[in-house]
């Protein structure tokens, strides 16, 4: 069984976001594999280690430097990579189209991807790909089992969790609790240098959406320290939880 894992190269999650010429600046930013995708890579490698998968292919759409993300995945233990060269401004529709084309060429039995990207947080691409390919999908999986041509996952759902089974081929998006991704060893890094990475140009597809403006949120008000009677403190906190953090209270 061939497993294909989608990875996105994103900013380090601690990176300071700054605007330059109206766009998000990537100067001095360390790039990483989207942490949710890292879990997907780990799961693919574990499937191979369990003897379920025979090959783990890593595919990333993005700028040329996204090859670093592929190399990291290869160092973790994936077998080969495909870089789909695409403008990073392409929207979810265009990205899903480009990736789906590569997936149909690679013809895997299972596609794994993080359920959301740490940068745009849109959580659309895996589901869109499933639709393009006409495959079933499961989102936000916290466990994964493969048997008899079927995938079974525990996944998060509104108001609880559910156990879903789908026939392969399928697309499964992963939650971070699925596993703990490994740290690539030097052995892995050395081997990764010899693993093949193909580069293909993305299918030319128009984006359906357009970002018209980037901005930075108003600076968070400096934290305030309150003293006084417990009842007053409670009022202050309750007000903050309801109106600022906007948390739903279960009565």
């Amino acid at each position: 069984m061939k497993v294909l894992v989608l990875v996105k190269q994103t900013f380090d999650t601690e990176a300071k976001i700054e605007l330059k010429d109206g766009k998000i600046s990537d100067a001095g930013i360390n790039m990483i594999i989207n942490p949710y995708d890292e879990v997907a890579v780990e799961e693919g490698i574990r499937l191979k280690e369990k003897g379920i998968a025979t090959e783990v292919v890593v595919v990333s759409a993005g700028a040329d430097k996204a090859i670093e993300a592929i190399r990291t995945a290869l160092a973790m233990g994936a077998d080969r990579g495909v870089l789909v060269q695409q403008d990073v401004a392409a929207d979810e529709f265009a990205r899903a189209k480009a990736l789906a084309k590569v997936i149909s060429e690679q013809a895997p039995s299972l596609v794994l991807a993080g359920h959301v990207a740490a940068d745009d947080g849109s959580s659309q691409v895996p589901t869109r790909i499933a639709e393009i390919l006409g495959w079933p999908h499961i989102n936000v999986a916290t466990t994964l089992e493969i048997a008899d041509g079927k995938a079974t996952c525990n996944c998060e759902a509104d108001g609880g969790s559910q156990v879903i089974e789908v026939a392969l081929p399928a697309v499964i998006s992963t939650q971070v609790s699925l596993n703990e991704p490994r740290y690539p060893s030097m052995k892995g890094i050395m081997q990764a240098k010899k693993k093949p990475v193909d580069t293909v140009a993305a299918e030319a597809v128009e984006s359906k959406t357009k970002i018209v403006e980037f901005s930075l949120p108003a600076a968070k008000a400096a934290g305030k320290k309150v003293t006084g009677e417990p009842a007053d403190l409670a009022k202050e906190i309750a007000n903050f939880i309801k109106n600022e953090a906007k948390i739903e209270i279960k009565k």
Partner: protein
Amino acid sequence: MIFGFEPLEVYDIPMRVVGANVPYEWLIYILMFIPLGIFAFGLYKRIRVWLLANGRINRIDKLGSRIVSLLVYSLGQAKVIKKPLAGWMHFFLFWGFFVLFIAAQIDAMHFWLHWPKLEGGLYIGFSWVVDVLGFLAMIGILVLAFIRYVQKPDRLSDTKSSDGWIIALIFVILFSGFLIEGLRIAAQIKLATRLDEIVYEAKASPFGWLFAYLFAGMSLDGALMWHRILWWFHMALAFGFIALVPFTKLWHIITSMFNYFVRDLEASACRMVYNIEEAESFGVERIEDFTWKDIIDLDACIRCGRCQENCPAYLTGKHLNPKLTLIQAMKAHWDAKAPYLLAAKDAGHAEGHAEMAMTAEAEEAKPVMEQHLIYDVVTSDVVWDCTNCRACMEHCPMFIEHIPKIIEMRRNLVMWQGDMPGEAQMAFTNMERNYNPWGVGFSNRAGWLQERGVRDMVNLLPEDGGDFEYLLYAGCAVAFDDRYKRVGEALIKVANKAGIKFGYLGTEEYCCGDSARRLGNEYLFQTLANSNIESFNNYGVKKIVAVCPHCYNCVKNEYPQLGGQYEVYHYTEFLAKLLAEGKIKMSRSLGAKLTYHDSCFLGRHNNVYDEPRTVIKATGCNLIEVERGREFGFCCGAGGGRMWLEEHAVEGYKRINDTRTDQLLEPNPEMVITNCPFCLTMINDGVKGVESEAQVLDVAELVWRAMQ
């Protein structure tokens, strides 16, 4: 004379004839080749085994220093005597045996060359020294036996029957020597016409003289006969002793000399991995991949247990016991494996077991050859337990290098097996991405200056430009740990009052890499270190003041391996210097009762014990020394990268930091003073845990208080 023997006589002048009264005495000069041959054979075998080690290390540079080391630590027993009772007893034993051995050589020389002539005063002096030292050696072995079998300290918990046999052998050799001497003197007394003729022996052999009383009632013939019998008995045992050296714990006599000569003479640093980009494997996975020094270490371990009784991991119930679960476990594995490696080598297989797989011998070798050094022999728990506190290496009388072995195995686990605790993985990722182990965004590394109100007191590079004499290498804790930011602030304020404006790299300062290196991630260490060295060189840095002892050790002792040579001070050394130069003045005497915790990386790793104490005392505080202080300082539990790993308390024991906290709070101090951010965190945690009122402060904070 060849066929007969020289009779025992009473001589005109103080002297004695070696071998008098012993028929065929000359035979020993032939028989001695038997034990010498066995010894040489054993030596040859052990050295061949040592040469199986694949690792490379240069330990034959600096010949002068090495010869001095050999003399100081063997003849001077300088390390051995650090443990007073057992140490001095060993000192006697060593010198007794050594002198007796020399005396035997002089006797032999006289037999062949009839020189030197030991007569008169020279004889008395010579004999006295041998007699007295021989007796002290006998006392020594008895006390050592007492310690082992009556006191039974935990450090000797692995006593074997062979330990007892060796003790017995040594005692019997010494005791029989005195019996022979006593019999000879008793016979001479009987031969003498007047006691005056022989009374010089009371001076020359005071203890032999006492032994002679034992035989006062014996007939002359009886004494002469027993003298002959015991003489041969004594010689047989002595020869046995020589023959046994390479095959028993007596082997330490030889390995100690090797180790005193080839010990690590450099400042405390992890071993460098050169050309890491081209390396084809990392760390040590098979025991034969260690260096010959590491392999000799296994033979050198005399199982005295000084490492064990100072090891914070062992003392808190962890798997690591530097003697048993590290060195002795490796030795047993090596002794089992080496014969097969040797056979493979002799058969011309350079690679050993791969080709051996076909032979019957290989079948037998399999269990040993397939045992995994890290997982089956030492175990990864042991490898990760170590805090690199250096107590084992400090107290080892054999200069065994425990930490480098641990680190080589960690290197293999991290860089080759990819097997490490999840927390280590997180620390590495954080260091890679944000250049600090906590993973706080690096862009705000200089933010603490503003936050603590000391922004104008430093030259922040590059924006402030300007000249500076000392670069402040503040480290990650000062930059990101809210508690430790105050220490950075205090130091800058003190320096400012002394008229010193530090340079500071801000976002161009990266983690020093100490934790990465000691957790086995050499590659990450070198990446971080090279970045720092580049920044230092870029700004023409010559002198560095480090706040954290881990940074200090790393920049001072390890950056030179990568070409970064600077004059590095720990801030306590720097403050002591300012104090000595009269540049800082205390405004008040704090008068607090306090205890001081020696951090391992400032103390044992760098021998900085006095400067912090001088500075503390200058604040007018009453410094109470704790029992485990200075060289015996007990780790806080955070060294060797353990700061980033969870320590699970073992049932029946406290955590390392809590154990240390108890020791520091024992004198009931108002304050506990540290010099390291890791120690401060760990001790603070411990103090809170026992709900003590004691304040945990760093030296810099104490000084700033006294200056206000």
